[in-house]
């Protein structure tokens, strides 16, 4: 099976963010970066599928500046076979511009399965994978927490509000991967890290489309007003209930 995984380099979400001088970006000074969590699960899912299907290959693709090579190398160290950087100064908003660049790279690749994380943890939008499927005219199953491939078709499950949908679809297809599909992404081994240095990493210019949506402004949210400790132990319950009734008016 020929599998592609599209991955994104994102800042560590534990950081205290600052807004950049242009007022419409995150100041990257001092931030640590890594692969988006959902994308790591997608890489892990691809590697597990490749292990079950002899002769499979896993290619990882990331769009962005040269720094994304580090993210690609991590996926290679986890066990992916080859990497592609679609070189661009930044990652435009709105999904479409990036989706067009990825679709252009994937179109002639002959992939049976193209995986994305359900959402990137930085922009929290979850658009690109589905758009790529649509641009390529491929079936797309989103937010899979289960995926099984047999022959030329696949089945999966996704959690929706208040339930679980079971899906079936033919390959080739695009899938976006949710939490729960794999238990945990593997850590790159030392051997894997050494091997990754020798794996092919192609660098190509990204054929970005037009961005339909732009970021006009970024700001830090207003801090929540300081709360208060109502009291200690069960004795504080009557006061809490009183506050919920009279002050917060939610009871």
């Amino acid at each position, binding site marked *: 099976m020929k599998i592609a995984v599209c991955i994104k380099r994102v800042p560590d*979400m534990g950081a*205290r963010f600052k807004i950049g001088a242009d007022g*419409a970006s*995150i100041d990257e000074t001092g931030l640590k970066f890594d692969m988006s969590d*959902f994308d790591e699960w997608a890489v892990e899912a691809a590697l597990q599928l490749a292990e079950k299907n002899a002769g499979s290959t896993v290619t990882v693709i990331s769009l962005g500046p040269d720094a994304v090579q580090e993210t690609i190398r991590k996926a290679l160290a986890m066990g992916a076979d080859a990497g592609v950087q679609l070189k661009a100064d930044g990652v435009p*908003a709105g*999904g*479409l511009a990036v*989706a067009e660049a990825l679709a252009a790279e994937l179109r002639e690749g002959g992939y049976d399965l193209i995986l994305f994380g359900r959402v990137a*943890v*930085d922009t*929290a*939008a*979850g658009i*690109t994978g589905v*758009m790529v499927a*649509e*641009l390529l005219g491929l*079936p*797309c199953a*989103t*937010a899979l927490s289960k995926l099984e491939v047999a022959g030329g078709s696949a089945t999966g499950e*996704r*959690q*929706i*509000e*208040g*339930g*679980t*949908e*079971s*899906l079936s*679809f033919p390959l080739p*297809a695009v899938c976006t991967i949710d*939490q*729960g599909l794999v238990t945990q992404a593997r850590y790159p081994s030392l051997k894997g890290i050494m091997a990754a240095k020798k794996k092919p990493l192609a660098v190509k210019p990204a054929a970005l489309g037009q*961005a*339909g*949506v*732009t*970021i006009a402004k*970024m*700001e830090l*949210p207003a801090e*929540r007003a300081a*709360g208060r*400790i109502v*009291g*200690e*132990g*069960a004795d*504080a*319950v009557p006061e*809490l*209930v009183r506050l*919920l*009734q009279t002050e*917060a008016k*939610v*009871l």
Partner: protein
Amino acid sequence: MANVLVIAEARGGALKKVALEATTAARTIADASGGQVHAVLFGAPGVGAEADKLGAVGADVVHVCEHAAFEQFDAESFAATAAAAAQAVSPKAILVGGTAFGQDLAPRIGAKLGAGVAADAIDVTMDGDAIAIRHPMATGKVIATLVAAGQLAIVTVRPGAIAVGTSAKAGTVQPLAPASDPAASRVKVTKLTTGGGKLDLAEAPVVVSGGRGLKAPENFKLVEELADAFGNAAVGATRAVTDDGWRPHSDQIGQTGRQVAPSLYVAVGISGAIQHVAGMRNSKTIVAINKDKDAPIFKVADYGIVGDVFEIVPKLTEAVRAARAQR
């Protein structure tokens, strides 16, 4: 003039609340420029009975697309039909609730129409010629304003973020045929397993969540009983708890799980890791019960009680029941 198109979600023949929220936002945009609100409602035959609810919150026209196959979600046929409807209505924006339904459909429609998607909006406004949305990113630590200037924007609206309005319009019902044969759709929903009529996290006015502080999966009954006492509450959990299999992943609230913004959020035995706070910080009122007075959850909570959850929660359940019985 800016027409706005809403893609309305129904499940099991019943309209989702987020469809009313999206229609409310659509009405506001349309009113800013003298446009009309059109809604497309998909479902099995009979779903058209829900159309008047969309009229009551501001839809001028409701295009009802009924098909026996639409008992289940059909991304391909819904997206093709929505795109065709958009071509007829020429909207400035297409709004859809940011549920699994909308998150799947919005990018498909965007790609079909060559439009960008602004996801997970907590606010949608019209600024001159431009649709502007506010979207919490980076686990809610940054708020981005995205703008689609002079062109179509597809917007997913975060459930619970927009208060349902009362600006009633005609809601004239027009039948709409699917633009593609559902039988030809390649991705099939073969089964839908529902949670047995429990309130959904995205729609519940109250969410009661439990964390590791509950010590064992069976102790989640304390959380369930408290939720039951409120009468309108759904039960959530932290990632630690869902990773350990105490609760299903679908119950997880946080950065990698569900994002909720209920009127009241009660955190039981939850320390308040960034991962979790990212999913609930927009709740209107937050209550935390935790034994550690220094737990970060108390920094986001409006009201906190420090102490043993096994002692406090049953008392709170009792008090909430009593308070509701008096009303």
